[in-house]
């Protein structure tokens, strides 16, 4: 993968920092230039960081259950700020309570996220998907 800028962070008032540290290490290893905003990141902070670093993708984590509230509207705000093309991934324990993944996925796809991941996702697969999505966007831009 060509070095690509991505922004990473845990949204809302979520303090779960372990997965975030692992994601940073993993995506860096995989060749991304990672801007890790850490935990407790607002939608605004994600967007400014993406603009500043000219990022191609934002990786949103939400573990603590408030994902449904915290993640809504990010796509719209991105478009507003001119990030029409940015890839939005979201992952973690996205809703309150054990819920069939298909339901969760549908909910977040509808919110405008490109891909949705459960806590059990295999990071190697995520990188593959990211490469694919980056390629598609590039072609789309041609």
């Amino acid at each position: 993968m060509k070095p690509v800028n991505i922004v990473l962070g845990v949204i809302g008032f979520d303090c779960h920092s372990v997965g975030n540290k692992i994601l940073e290490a993993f995506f860096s290893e995989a060749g991304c230039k990672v801007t890790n905003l850490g935990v407790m990141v607002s939608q605004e902070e994600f967007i400014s960081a993406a603009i500043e670093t000219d990022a191609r993708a934002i990786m949103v984590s939400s573990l603590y259950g408030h994902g449904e509230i915290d993640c809504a509207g990010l796509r719209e705000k991105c478009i507003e700020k001119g990030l029409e093309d940015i890839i939005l991934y979201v992952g973690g324990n996205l809703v309150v309570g054990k819920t069939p993944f298909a339901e969760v996925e549908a909910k977040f796809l509808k919110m405008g996220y490109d891909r949705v991941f459960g806590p059990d996702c295999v990071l190697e697969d995520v990188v593959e998907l990211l490469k694919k999505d980056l390629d598609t966007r590039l072609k789309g831009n041609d």
Partner: protein
Amino acid sequence: MSSHMLSRDSFNRIRSEILETWPTGKDLSLEEGIEYQKKIPTAKNFAVAMRKASEAGETLLQPRAGVALIQDHIKLLQYLENEGAADLLPTTIDAYTRQNRYQEAAVGIEKSLQARTSLLNGFPAVNHGVIGCRQVTEAVKKPIQVRHGTPDARLLAEITLAGGFTSYEGGGISYNIPYAKKVPLKKSIEDWKYVDRLVGIYEENGIHINREPFGPLTGTLVPPFVSHVVAIVEGILALRQGVKSLTLGYGQGGNMFQDIAALISLKSLAHEFFKREGFSDYELTTVFHQWMGGFPEDEAKAFSVISWGASVAVLAGADKVIVKSPHEAMGIPTKEANAQGLRCTRQAVNMLRDQKFPIGGEHRKEIEMIEREVRSIMEAIYRLGNGDVENGVVAAFEAGAMDIPFAPSIHNHGKILPMRDNEGYIRVFNKGNLALDDEIVAYHRARLEERAKAENRDVCFQMVTDDIYAISKGRLVGRPR
């Protein structure tokens, strides 16, 4: 910042400020709260329950639980005491309230009403106010505690203690470093001084309120000495404000012998330092947290982790065990799943309660190791604080002499890297600036080299990652794949 008991004047000044921060705090009367607490039957007093369990050598069971709406929350707790046979009840506070975002919590309540299900990850006690809290505490038969993760928990404490809760979890370090990003340690310690003083005032009025510093911290590969230091320091700070009933906690590490050594040493070390600080009039009990790191998704496997945690809690002689559910890896448990965790735990506790665990020589060595480690850090804290623990601990975190692994706070060095040795004991791989003497560090290193040899790889960062995933992937030591 001062290391003395908060004066009544300062207390009152702060009080009038914080009661203003949300409408439910307005006109809250401390006297009325105390009068209300006096009417709560002894059988529902948390501090008394903890003391009795300790005297009888019993291990009490407590789940975690909290939902957005009062009636649902009551149903949940009643289910846990009836179907789950919980000995002690919780009220877990939602994450907006923990960050004093009562406005967001209000939105969460609203959305939960609409969705007919809780969209909050806990009970927003501040928004529900004293009246809401009393509805909850009156609806249950068992002692009930506030469990949260709030750096500034002053308003929450005022409301919930007046609301009839008889135990309050947290502390200025343990509810900051693992739970917040930017809150200065000095500030959270100062704010918790208020909470402890509030409890002290209740105590002075004859109301016994239990206080429980949060033991597990980030729940992820925390070496026993790290959480012990936090527990002991927070214990001292609480005792200074007049707290009398203290429950110190420890989160299961995974190696049975290290865990038992940890719980034994926690108690003796606490007594040692409390004595050194001149305290003698307190009740000290312990709590063991079942595995606090990433859980396996498969419920059969999760049950195994739960049962194993329960077993070690009993063998270690914990007075209380905090219970997980088979849904842990996925989401906040349903009441049924939560009760399953309790029943699984109860079975283990009852099967093991009569079995005595004799401490052998090998084991004694691990206890001594933990003692050395804790004393080593505590000495640094005293040194950096010129004899004062409170100033010392702030300085120690600043200098990295004290450091909590994987914590989100920018006020934590985050240089320490823990790792399992070949038998699964949690050791220190990278000590950062941690105030551990060379002999200790060499011992840790030697144990880690043993593992590296067994795994045919060098001691490396990958091992840490492997260890973080290990239990959720079905083992203890993260062996190479």
